[in-house]
């Protein structure tokens, strides 16, 4: 297959391009050409995912994603000369994610945990080989990926799991403080032990 020109990340080494990384948070940016007419399917699919939460639940099981979004790019905004109007044959699917762990682990998880959803989404794009086996899927993502030139996170050392644990602890801690405000030392000790048991998975 003539893959023609590819995104810059396709030529990246096995290491993460420096622009895609801030601390423990990594960016992935993928832009793929949508087959004619399939943009309608994508709009229906994403509308369904957005309104029927249980369908999007597997994404939460991929507990290493902070934020992710897809966009059907159906027009390139025009700003006048010297920009030339873009006459493209296709609409494009833009995917951006912010996650922890290695790039390989990320794509493997997509392949193994939400493979059907990946087919539903990227099956609309030219060249998608399917999520399994994972090697061609990784090669496909690499070809369509663009390395960030600048990437920044407000909490770069925190994984998604740690953020969620911290928020849960914050909630339980606030409740604990309110409940123990007027307790004796003995009562406080019992409540504190109960708190420790309750939050041990959050520490």
């Amino acid at each position, binding site marked *: *297959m003539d*893959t*023609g*020109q*590819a*995104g*810059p990340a396709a030529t990246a080494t096995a290491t993460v391009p420096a622009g895609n990384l801030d601390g423990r948070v990594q960016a992935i*940016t993928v832009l*793929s*050409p949508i087959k004619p007419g399939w943009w309608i399917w*994508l709009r229906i699919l*994403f509308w369904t995912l957005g309104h029927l939460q249980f369908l999007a639940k597997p994404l939460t099981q991929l507990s290493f*994603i*902070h*934020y*992710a*979004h*897809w*966009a*059907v790019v159906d027009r390139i905004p025009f*700003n006048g*000369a*010297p*920009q030339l*109007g*873009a006459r*493209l044959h296709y609409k494009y699917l*833009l995917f*951006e994610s*912010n996650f922890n762990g290695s790039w390989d682990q990320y794509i493997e998880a997509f392949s193994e945990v939400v493979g059907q959803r990946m087919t539903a989404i990227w099956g609309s794009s*030219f*060249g998608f080989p399917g999520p399994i086996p994972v090697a061609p899927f990784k090669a496909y993502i690499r*070809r*369509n990926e*663009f390395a*960030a*030139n*600048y*990437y*920044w*996170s*407000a909490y770069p050392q*925190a994984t*998604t799991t740690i*953020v*969620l644990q*911290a*928020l849960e*602890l*914050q909630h339980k*801690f606030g409740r604990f*403080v309110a409940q123990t405000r007027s*307790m004796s*030392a*003995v009562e*406080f*000790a019992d409540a*504190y032990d109960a708190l*420790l048991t309750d939050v041990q998975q959050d*520490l």
Partner: protein
Amino acid sequence: MSNVAGQAYSLTVLTPVLPDREPALRASLQQLNEGRRSLFEQLGDTHLVRLVLVDQLVYEGPPQLRDTLTSRYLLFTAVFDGALEPFLNRLCRRMGPVIDSVWSHCVGFPGTRDPGKAITYFRHNQIDATFFYAAYPDASVAQVLDALTLRERFTSFALQAQDMQPTARQAAFEATFPSSSRPR
């Protein structure tokens, strides 16, 4: 709206690069990397930012027909708290020189001297999300940072307090987490 999940907003902007300005834009983006930590921190409400130069579209071979971009494009994505207009306002007013240093290389950018025009420019070039996922959609940047700090402090306290007597532990807790600093 697909750009919103809970209280979080995902903004994507795609702007054309002026002819022959790609090297200068790359240099500006490299300079951002050199001052990286403090730049967007000053906004206080921004979770993530990325800037990506899109130089060409991918061709996967037949039956796809080849699409060719006639301009390079700068892709800007930010995830932040709250609504779009206030964010763009803060971006243009507090980070004017930084924004100018990047987008001055893009077609039609009016500069941030008149923030209203710059905001109009960004909105004109916005690409709406079709689906936006957030792992903690209702947590602001401030809340996340507070929670992370609390987690660290409470873990440290739990280790120190494990052998304390009840009275000492309660006193140590109140000294470590005074009423004024506790989450409400």
